């Protein structure tokens, strides 16, 4: 088990290097000039040139890449080209709000999705099954900005139950919890559909297997048969799906964070790219990559916990 984890960790290193290289090249080829952004629209050409020189953008790309690698080797992510704020502190400030949002969205949507999928499988072909599947198709099809705006319209504006701008504090404070509600509700809603559909098909597969028939033959209650013998074995593909969906959630977080003015990584990445802030953009790309690698690692570990055969 430990060696498998170590093996995965070692394999992550070249992936991370590839992402760093890709991130550097990407921001180089994207059109845009941070010096123009800093100088503003009324600046003369000589002022822009002076600012460009100060930022080191007048250096050849290879020189910039070498300096970038040197910084990365010692864990120095540099400073924002626009604000001069340390990239590490920018990322640190944005990381937790995004994690909070993702956990907040998964903590309700995964159980709901699994429960809906299981119920649909158990009552397969019934009206409830069809209703759940229709709902999950709607969840997959509706764009997140639409769900977010509807949530704001009804829960924020019409009934005025939840706030919908900013993050006044962490989730465990009253204000923070209320502010997290709508973004987490909106973001989580995109996860329900895929989880419910995958759970349904997986549970249906498992319920046909011999060990389930044996469990029933032993006289176990139907609930126990479904939950202990059916659902547990059906969860492996669901866990994989959730791992993959984390990436989708990060993408959704970019939109959700913008609509709800949530100060997370998604907004940081968009803001950095929009202002050609190369160092911050590279930092967020690296954090996203690390996030994917970590989630995949966790999925692998969960796999082996759920299915002992994987450990062998």
């Amino acid at each position: 088990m430990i060696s498998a984890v170590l093996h995965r960790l070692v394999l992550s290193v070249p992936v991370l290097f590839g992402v760093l290289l890709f991130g550097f090249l990407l921001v180089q080829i994207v059109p845009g000039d941070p010096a123009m952004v800093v100088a503003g629209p009324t600046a003369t050409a000589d002022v822009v040139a002076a600012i460009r020189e100060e930022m080191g953008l007048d250096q050849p790309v290879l020189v910039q890449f070498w300096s970038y690698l040197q910084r990365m080797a010692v864990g120095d992510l540099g400073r924002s080209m626009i604000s001069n704020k340390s990239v590490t502190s920018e990322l640190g400030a944005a990381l937790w709000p995004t994690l909070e949002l993702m956990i907040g969205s998964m903590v309700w949507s995964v159980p709901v999705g699994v429960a809906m999928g299981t119920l649909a499988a158990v009552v397969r072909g019934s009206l409830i099954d069809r209703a759940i599947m229709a709902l999950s198709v709607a969840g997959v099809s509706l764009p997140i900005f639409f769900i977010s705006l509807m949530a704001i319209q009804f829960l924020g504006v019409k009934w005025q139950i939840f706030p919908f701008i900013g993050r006044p504090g962490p989730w465990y404070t009253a204000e923070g919890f209320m502010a997290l509600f709508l973004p987490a509700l909106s973001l989580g809603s995109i996860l329900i559909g895929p989880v419910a559909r995958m759970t349904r098909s997986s549970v249906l597969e498992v319920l046909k297997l011999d060990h389930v028939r044996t469990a029933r033959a032993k006289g176990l209650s139907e609930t126990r048969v479904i939950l202990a013998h059916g659902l547990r074995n059906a969860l492996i593909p669901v866990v994989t799906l959730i791992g993959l969906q984390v990436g989708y959630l990060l993408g959704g977080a970019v939109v959700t964070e913008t609509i709800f003015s949530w100060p997370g990584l998604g907004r940081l990445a968009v803001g950095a790219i929009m202002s050609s802030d190369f160092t911050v953009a590279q930092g967020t790309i690296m954090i996203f990559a690390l996030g994917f690698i970590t989630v995949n690692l966790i999925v692998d570990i969960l796999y082996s916990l759920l299915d002992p055969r994987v450990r062998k």
Partner: protein
Amino acid sequence: MTPTPIKRAGFGLAAAMALALPVAAQELTIIRAQDSNHYDPPRTTAQSGAEIIFMLSDTIVGLAEDMKTIEPLLASSWDVSDDALTYTFKIRDDVSFCDGKPMTAEDVAWSLNRWQDPETKSPVRWRMGDVKSITAPDATTVVYELNAPHSELLYQLAQSFGSIIDKDTYETLGKDFGVTGFNGTGPFCWESWTPRDKVVMTRHDGYNWGPANYENRGPAQVEKVTWQIVPEAATRTVALLTGQGDISPYIPFIGYSTLRAAPNINVIKSESAFWTNYMGFKITKDLVGDVKVRQAINLAVNQEAMAEDLFFGEVEPAYSYVSSGALDYDATLNDSLLKYDPEKAAALLDEAGWVLNSDGKREKDGKVMEPLAISFTGEWQQTSEAVQADLLKVGIELQIEPMDSTVYWGKSATDEFEMYVMGYPYISAGDALNLYFRSANIPTPNRMNWNDPETDELLVAGSQATNETDRAAAYAKVLHKVHDNAVWLPIYHRPMQIGYSTKLAPFEAHNIYGAGLYKGLQLTFTE
């Protein structure tokens, strides 16, 4: 009426919150659309930077809401030498920074010298004029010497770039000044900045030296101000409606009618507009090189319809390059402004040799009139498309290339287009003309390639005039010249509009650099 379960849940949660949270007294949330790159006065040209800097610090002189009257601020009085080369400012001796340290003339001289220091790389250094020296001979006197007169010096010194900051704090923070901290003499003090999220400032309790045009010269009534960034336009409107924000100058045009109809929101609108949106012509390009073509394009576009249909009647259709309310605007210009007349536009194009071909497009010497306009995405793209539709009616097929702002600024410094879009704030006609029409400012911000020695001479004469009459006369000539040559297609003047909660007392909006709340001293809760 029985509350619904949802409402009951809401009341329950609200009650829980009310118990859990302390009562927030005199705290104000201002909603805005975007952040600044940082808040270091001479280095940021962002409107969103000026909004914060005006509240955190003071300039030596202030500007009244009429955008014409210069008021004492950190300087209680000043003398100008007969040759207009030396300004001697008497600095107040009762002013202190947020950390309690007294402010002296030395701080003023140091801050202004830092603005002009080439090491600072201020993009707006030119606004200071041709400085010879800035010195502080004693604790309450600053002498500002120029090599050549600068007729608008006091107006430029009233802008946020000339804000006075504490030297010691700057030396401690270095480039982190305006990033991790700030120490100024303004009505509010820096508490924190979370980029792309919010700026929080608290009241400067000792403040009592606000501009004379304010009824309350300090301290501010509001104890804490949070500038919350809400990037989504519709969310900004509903945030104000639902009381999640108290005030916002960043309401989309479509939202104002809703706000006016709401019982809990007031909207103020300034009488004059000091922000003009226009499309410029790259006059060195063949397609728009002929003044008749440019005049025809001006005549073919219906600014009034655009103001009504695109901007919901919230803006003033523009035919001049600066608002008629601006200092040194020449009213005689009004008679010669180009207003919507598509028939005259068609006649001018015929006269210029651009005749309609069988496809209904203008053609000359085998070349079709298809000028390329570069544009921002979003609102500007819609504006460009409206212009495109009007021009098509006279046979001009405008091509539009929309792009993101980061790409746009670089592209607009090239010669790869015939037209471009721009919106800009100004404090006077001279401010606008000196920036955009000097030949030395080609390729940016003079993106038209307008290179006219007489304009340059007149602009120098205006900026070096030693009296207001000469200054106004010189700028009037430039205004006539550039309008006669139709180097821009003005679209609209944008007045400052602010939506605010009825919990706040009515106030007057300012227009300085788009910072409608200026020092924030007028913000008062009525409850």
